């Protein structure tokens, strides 16, 4: 993968180094061949929350902003909103049991 720094879990250490190409690469590594419009909608909400509040959004906010159902989010990102979506969106790993 590109010359970027990742932590042991594969999360970007510096979220500001994230680009759309990085998102594509991480997604591929997770078995998501093509990021669809729905994927990008989720990624956009996550990045916006991170830029405004410095943390990943609640999954409620992702659903509300994108109009997607919880089930859809879990299907779009099989590793879930944290290890799946937040990682593709270039956020550092959230604290806790994720």
């Amino acid at each position, binding site marked *: 993968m590109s010359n970027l720094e990742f*932590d*042991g*879990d*594969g*999360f970007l250490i510096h979220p500001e180094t994230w680009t759309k190409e990085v998102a594509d690469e991480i997604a591929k590594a*997770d*078995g998501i061949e093509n990021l669809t419009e729905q994927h990008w909608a989720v990624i956009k909400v996550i990045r916006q929350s991170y830029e405004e509040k410095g*943390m*990943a959004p*609640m*999954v*409620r*906010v992702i659903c509300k902003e994108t109009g997607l159902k*919880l089930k859809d989010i879990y299907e779009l990102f*099989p*590793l*879930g*909103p*944290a*290890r799946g979506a937040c990682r593709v969106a270039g956020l550092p*790993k*959230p*604290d*806790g*049991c*994720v």
Partner: protein
Amino acid sequence: MNKLTKAQIDAALKLLKMPADSKLVTHLNACVHCGLCGTSCMYYTTLKEPRYMPARKVEMVASLYRRYCTLTGKIFPHLVHARELDEQMAEEMIDVLFGGCTMCGRCVKHCSIGVDIAYIVRVGRQMLAAMGLVPATLQATVDAALNTGNNMGIPTEEFVDTIQWMEEDMQSEEGFEKATIPLDKEGCHVLYTLNPREPKFFPLSISAMAKVFYAAKESWTLSSTMYDVTNYGLFNGNNEQAGVIAKHLHDEVLKLKAETLILGECGHGSRATRWEGPNYLGQAYEFEVRTVVELINDYIRSGRIKLNPALNAEKVTLHDPCNLVRNGGLLQELRFAVRQSCADFVEMNPCGNDNYCCGGGGGQLAMSEYNERRLKIGEIKANQIRATGAKVVVTPCHNCVDQLTQLSHHYKLNVKIKTIAEIVADALVMEK
């Protein structure tokens, strides 16, 4: 690593010099080097490096004990293989005691003379904590709990919004139109608790349990601020911080005048609160503390809820969270709840007290540094699951859920991971 200061070393050694702790001295001097623990350990079995042998982990702490607390070790350290507490030793301890042990206790069950190896590992972690050498990722999770009341730093307003959203979602389902998720209600029988990853990312387990409470006509509530069942103070080795976190729930029960504190599906949180909590707090609880699985079983046994196992037709297996089964004694309780809720149950091999850890215990999921090892040792668990042929793995621990989800993805197991509340809620038969 920076050179250790005298203050750091003194703080760590103070923990070994506590004369009141006869358990520590006994267990540090009891290992007979038989090696049975080696094949018990997921790290040693998978990575095949001697440093991961549980006996070697005990020996690290024991060699320091001999160096600083015995006469021979003080005068002729080499004669008794006593080691100095220096930077190299500290680095080895961090790598193995934090990064190479899930504190699952499987080695303890197999030890020919019953050395409590996981306890010695925690004493080693306590020494590292006293020197300020807890891995930053693990400490961040503890700090979030200390600073905000929950280990993911969720603001109260966002938590409340999520609970209301889940409540509306649940009420749109047939049979649950009148079900609620009460917040901060005083004088209830049950104060229920959550793992913060539920409201943050996986809230369906909250509404699943709310359905069970509704079916059982339980008087219950959640707190809008102190709902976190986890206590990473068990893992970072800092008893003072563990005590502050334990006090969060303790004080909340008194504030809301609840009769019983019910611990959500979290292995280490149940252990840290129910069994270690009184030690951290320095007092017995003034109220009853139980796990939610035991409460659900009360409902089933007394007929307060009715289940139809045919509603969960897929083949189900059970992963035993170490802190609830091997270290908590809930072996039969977990099986009762799962067997009552599904039509086709199969055990893993080995299972129960001899089951393997998911590989993510002991704070491993929080420590990104050791992710590669965590996924490697998880292969044992992945193979166990694959061999059962089950489509669903049930486990009453959100930490295990996360590790198992990752294992399912990584090792292509294609299984669904569920909590006990979720499988019970799916089997509920509601009265018309």
